């Protein structure tokens, strides 16, 4: 390549021109917006991840569990800092203290519920005994959607690229309605509605996500979905599960390829073969090292996924405004506790 400022030839991709010292920016100037591909890359490695996890294993028992929140944030910060988008690194702004306070609030909520339940049991023991299961399930069903939305809102609001925060503006009532109708329909159709439910969930999650002032969009069509799911399900059974990797890859590509922001669209190139070989090698790594190799397996997974994801189109990265919708960490902690902790 050549230096855009002085024109001297450069031996390889560099960040600085050795002749004139100009910074070689990869992003075009604000005036031109040619369609191009924005690459993603993961720079992290298993060694660092292992170090963080090992550190957690030492400090969490030592602090009787309190360090758990700081440890989790450390790992997340590492993942984000090592993820590169078009030469930029992401940043994670959450703190252990926020998570800790959020957990205290969740804890207080559970204690409060426990007290109420105990009081009710004292007053009407037989009624409560019969409603026991119902109450637990009811609480989970009521709390899980809140936890999912709140945790996403928190996580996105603590993520930034070029100093601009991401955001999630999904309305909670809308999500509850989505979950209720989707769940109900899936139940009475014995799962057949499942693909459509998943589709609607994705549309909600993606469509309500923002990068600063820019909204993400999902334009998938759910029409041919059911057939595809059925075919994949049958094929997976016939191949003793092996086809599921190809189906997973297809799903991945489908959801990413229908996600866009501004004039640019994501493109995923993961393949079933890639996922399958990744699974086999990672399983070997993890099992042969009795679990110690798990961080390396995780790093390889992330590296693969990001290496096969890019954004293509017109996107003026210089012109995004900051529009903040900060969320509280309570949702994230509740999601953690209820087991609905979804990755980004």
């Amino acid at each position: 390549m050549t230096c855009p400022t002085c024109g001297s030839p450069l031996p390889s991709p560099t960040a600085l021109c050795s002749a004139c010292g100009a910074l070689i920016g990869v992003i075009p100037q604000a005036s031109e917006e040619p369609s191009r591909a924005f690459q993603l890359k993961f720079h992290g490695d298993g060694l660092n991840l292992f170090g963080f996890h090992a550190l957690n294993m030492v400090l969490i028992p030592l602090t009787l569990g309190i360090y758990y929140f700081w440890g989790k944030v450390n790992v997340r910060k590492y993942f984000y800092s090592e993820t590169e988008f078009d030469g930029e690194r992401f940043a994670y702004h959450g703190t252990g203290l926020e998570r800790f306070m959020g957990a205290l609030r969740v804890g207080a909520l559970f204690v409060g519920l426990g007290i109420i339940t105990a009081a009710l049991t004292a007053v009407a023991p037989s009624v409560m005994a019969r409603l026991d299961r119902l109450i637990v399930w009811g609480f989970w069903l009521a709390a899980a959607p809140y936890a999912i939305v709140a945790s996403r809102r928190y996580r996105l609001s603590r993520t930034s690229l070029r100093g601009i925060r991401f955001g999630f503006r999904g309305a909670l009532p809308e999500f509850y309605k989505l979950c209720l109708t989707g769940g109900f329909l899936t139940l009475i159709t014995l799962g057949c509605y499942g693909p459509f439910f998943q589709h609607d969930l994705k549309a909600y999650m993606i469509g309500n996500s923002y990068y600063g002032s820019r909204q993400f969009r999902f334009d998938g069509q759910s029409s041919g979905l059911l057939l595809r799911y059925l075919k994949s399900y049958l094929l997976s059974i016939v191949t003793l599960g092996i086809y599921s990797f190809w189906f997973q890859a297809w799903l991945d590509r489908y959801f990413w390829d229908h996600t866009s922001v501004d004039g640019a669209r994501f493109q995923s190139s993961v393949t079933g073969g890639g996922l399958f070989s990744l699974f086999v090698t990672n399983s070997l790594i993890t099992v042969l090292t009795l679990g110690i190799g798990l961080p390396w397996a995780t790093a390889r997974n992330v590296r693969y996924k990001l290496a096969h994801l890019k954004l293509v189109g017109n996107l003026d990265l210089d012109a995004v405004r900051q529009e903040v919708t900060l969320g509280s960490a309570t949702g994230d902690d509740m999601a953690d506790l209820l087991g609905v902790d979804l990755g980004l």
Partner: protein
Amino acid sequence: MESVHANIGVWRGYYYDGQSSRRHEVTLNLAPTGLNIVSEDGTSRWWPYAEIRQTQGTFDGGQVRLERGGDLPETLVVTDVAFQDALRRFAPSWRRNGPLRMGGLSLALVAGIAAALSMAGIYVWGIPSFADAVAPFVPTAWEQKLGAAALEEMTAGQPRCDDPTKTRALERLVSELSRALPSQGYRFHVVLVQGETVNAFALPGGNIVVYTGLLDHTERAEEMAGVLAHEMQHVIHRDATRAILREVSLQVLVSALTGDQGSAKMLSTAASLGSLRYNRQAEAAADRDGMALVQAARIDPWGMVAMMRTLGRLEGNIPQAVSYLSDHPQTVERIHILQTLAHQAKYRPRPLLADVDWSAVARD
């Protein structure tokens, strides 16, 4: 990557103002008390070191990210890896908000070894000590609830044996033994379950499960009394409660460490005593105190010895080497200890359940 930076203190980077995503190319000078940042259009900013946070690049040799400000800070990114060293020379003292100062191999080694030692220590010492310390404080009422739940779970699908000949005999044995106990808070109750297993176990709170398979192999009441005495001591020692506490602690620890959750899983583990293991000390203590109880009740101690022999015959021979790995002390050793204790008995044993034909109780 050098030369431009040979004249120290001048670097190139990107600046973001925190209000828009626009990337400004800037040059920075490392002054003694702060950074002087000059944009392309000539705007100059002054960042005192005291107000700067470093959030990336603290250890990994990658780009350095500096932030200044509150929630939506201004950001400075320098991609040249040599900048880290320059920073350390000029401004070593500011807050590092990044993950850690140590990373890579050094962190992995130090933390890895520390973690291994810590895990071993917790498993071998920490959790058992915790369980031992907490067990005495668990209210008996809780133990009974736990025991009731565990009883449901462990004998699910197995029918109870209601034969009054058997159940009455067992209840009488229990009350004979209870009378010889110093006053304590447990009420013992034998649950006879139909099954070929030659086994009996104690649950928290006072329930003792006995399988008809075990009953079948007893020759006389004194042998059954030995088994019951042993199990009653497990209840009094709270061995089952201790084992549950250990299980739950382990689950909590694993959940916290792996960042995994599953409170439902934890609760079901607590109720499921299927994997309960009493360690060697607990079994030996139950043997010793069970024998003491038998003797206090003036029951023939050789019944308990004979029962242990029968169980040993049925178990088959466990090779010496393997026995150290299992949680139950080797049966031969136990028989030997019980024999020694039986020899020390100086009383004349009284007849036990003399009015009952034990073969009618034991067999079908």
